[in-house]
């Protein structure tokens, strides 16, 4: 790929959160202020949404279907009106601005390429309605086509293109009139896995190269984690957590996020001891474990503790001497090539998953074996019940 080194560095820096931290001090480019949306006057699809995005950020709205993420996108694009609250673009309220005057590029789920126009005509459309002269129009169309490596396809009809090619054209069409904000509504949903991964890379590359602010909607968490500067996890009409991908995965703010992002083991119990960054949780079967209090404040509270499968340790030598351990029975061993996956029965939970890397010294457990498992207290988060 031909993007230069400084852009790469900039991108890497931003990935690490440095640039975002700096940018978020600037005036917000896109802002949702106490936005609510109801379609039927009885149920709120979006409940009290507050969100602020700096310029140039790639933000993903992630959530299960019906969580309100697409509605938010449509409100931003102007196809739905907010029932309550303000949406600001570059400091101005856009509640009363019709979609065609917002100047927001949009990529739709099914691409929505106009079937009766050629690819070039599709791309020229936004320029035509902006009354841009023919020669400049052609130049811009050509540039946009080259940008997505589709230079020779200008004369084709959308129906003559493959899914991936259509996707590129849809992207080029959303970018050809140089919008500052681009919205993408599950743009990769219809592609096969390999193509999807390739396009994920293409989209982030373009977005960062061109410095566009992007709002990306998806229900695919891998997509969200790999592409975004920040991810807003939606559920039940609210943002459950808004954080960079690594923070989202490693430090989920509540049990929904912990469950929704990545693979997760949950154990339920009651907090019995709490002191600073450490607490002891007594599980429902009486066993005790160490955890880090996140959403619990005092002893006696019910909690769900969450442990990532790769943070569970069952190699006895590697465990702390004073760490609490749990008895576990191996139920199943799944060989996945690069990793081993074990299903254990722990404290009444039969779906406790443990993963280890396929290293030369890896322990291969057999079904039926009884072992002791443990973890570092900071890897085990005591969340809301």
């Amino acid at each position, binding site marked *: 790929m031909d993007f230069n080194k400084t852009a790469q560095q900039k991108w890497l820096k931003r990935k690490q959160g440095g640039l975002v931290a700096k940018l978020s001090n600037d005036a917000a480019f896109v802002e949702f202020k106490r936005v609510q949306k109801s379609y039927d006057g009885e149920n709120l699809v979006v409940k009290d949404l507050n969100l602020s995005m700096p310029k140039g950020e790639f933000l993903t709205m992630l959530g299960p279907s019906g969580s309100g993420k697409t509605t938010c996108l449509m409100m931003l694009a102007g196809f739905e009106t907010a029932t309550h609250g303000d949406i600001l673009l570059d400091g101005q309220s856009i509640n009363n601005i019709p979609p065609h005057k917002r100047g927001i590029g949009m990529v739709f789920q099914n691409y929505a390429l106009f079937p009766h126009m050629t690819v070039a005509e599709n791309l020229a459309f936004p320029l035509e309605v902006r009354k841009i002269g023919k020669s400049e129009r052609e130049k811009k169309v050509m540039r946009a086509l080259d940008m997505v490596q589709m230079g020779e396809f200008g004369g084709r009809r959308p129906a003559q293109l493959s899914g991936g090619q259509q996707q590129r054209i849809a992207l080029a069409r959303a970018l050809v*009139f140089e919008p500052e904000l681009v919205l993408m509504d599950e743009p990769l949903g219809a592609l096969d896995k390999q193509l999807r991964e390739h396009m994920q890379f293409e989209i982030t590359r373009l977005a960062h190269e061109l410095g566009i602010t992007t709002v990306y909607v998806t229900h695919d968490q891998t997509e969200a984690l790999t592409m975004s500067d920040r991810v807003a996890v939606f559920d039940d009409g609210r943002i459950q957590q808004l954080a960079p991908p690594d923070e989202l995965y490693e430090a989920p703010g509540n049990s929904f996020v912990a469950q929704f992002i990545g693979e997760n083991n949950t154990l339920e119990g009651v907090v019995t001891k709490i002191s600073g960054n450490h607490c002891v949780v007594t599980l429902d079967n009486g066993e005790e474990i160490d955890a880090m209090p996140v959403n619990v404040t005092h002893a006696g509270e019910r909690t769900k503790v969450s442990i990532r499968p790769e943070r569970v340790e069952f190699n006895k030598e590697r465990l702390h001497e004073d760490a609490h351990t749990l008895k576990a029975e191996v139920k199943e061993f799944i060989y996945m090539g690069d990793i081993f996956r074990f299903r254990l029965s722990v404290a009444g939970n039969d779906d406790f998953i443990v993963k280890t890397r396929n290293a030369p010294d890896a322990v291969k457990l057999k079904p039926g074996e009884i072992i002791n498992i443990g973890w570092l207290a900071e890897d085990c988060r005591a969340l809301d019940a």
Partner: protein
Amino acid sequence: MSDATQQDAPQSNGPVLAADGTPLKQSLARSLRRQKLRALILIAPLLLFVILSFLVPIASMLFRSVENGIVEETLPETVAELASWDATSGELPPEEVYAAFVRDMVVAVDEKTHTRLGSRLNYEETGMSSMFRRSGRAIKKLDPVEDAPFKEKLIDIHDGWGEVKTWATIQTHSGKYTDGYFLNAVDMQRTAEGPEMQPENKRILLTLFGRTLKMSLIITGFCILLSYPVAWLLANLPMRISNLLMILVLLPFWTSLLVRTSAWKVMLQQQGVINDTLVWLGLVADDARLVIINNQIGTIVAMTHILLPFMILPMYSVMQTIQPTYLRAAKSLGATNWTAFWRVYFPQSIPGIGAGSILVFILAIGYYITPEIVGGTKGVFISNRIAYHISSSLNWGLAAALGTILLAVVLILYWAYDKIVGIDNVKLG
């Protein structure tokens, strides 16, 4: 070619052979024959039914537009004798023709075919029918051998036999096939000098053809204008409401055509609902009630209403396939509502308009009942004339010729549409 493929197909120059050595094409055809035969057997009942009840009657009807055996069959000797007579000379045919005519007529009167011949020739020359009928009885009394010569006697029986025109008509129309009906159908006639226009006061059919085409176009146009918004609503409203609307659109289909047309009679007549309402509102004076029935307005209004569903349904089914995201995409790209509609939605709905227009226009061009009831004399179509010739004047040859022309016009228009818009652009769903 690589080595591997050469091994697979050693005789790359000759025809590809199947495993048993027969050419692959032949063995493929044989294996498909069973399938084709089974398909044919499955459709055979319908095919037979269509052929017997539809294609054969239509073909035989269309054949009547050129068939003209009756003159030669009824007057074989006369036709033979007339062949050597020159009608343009201005002289009556020689005695031999008269003698042959009497011999033919004696036979014809015996078999009672002379009146049919009379009606046939009457299409070409008014008065021939009564001439044949009245002469028949007198000629029967003549003896073909003893009463010669006949020239004077025939002229005594009817003056018509002493006119060159009479014999010229017989001569002109003595062929086995004729283009006379087609000429008549376009207001022309065949005379001894060749085809020429009919006298001004007898020209009516060309006007009718023109009117039929013009009014069908107007009706199609109105249908497009009225249907487009309705179809759009149907395609875009929530399912529950659009289903209700759909029932309203389909309602006319469940009502007899005759009832609907009669309803328009009630609505449109001078003492009808519309005029009464307008008078009551004071928009129209009582002594100046609008004439909106028994003329072209009546036909256009009633037929537009009756044909609307045929426009709405194809439009609806096409519009249903146009995703709303196209409009959204257009707007997100900066198009106003109108531009988005005109540049993005409308072009995609054209196949529906095309399908609806073809359907409505072809139905309209052959419409018969509605113009008959609400059209008066000014609002009737060519099909009303065809019906008249079929059932009243019994000039089936002319009716067949008119029908053939109508069919040809429709096919030509269909072809033109295919050339201009492309028939594969038409979608019925």
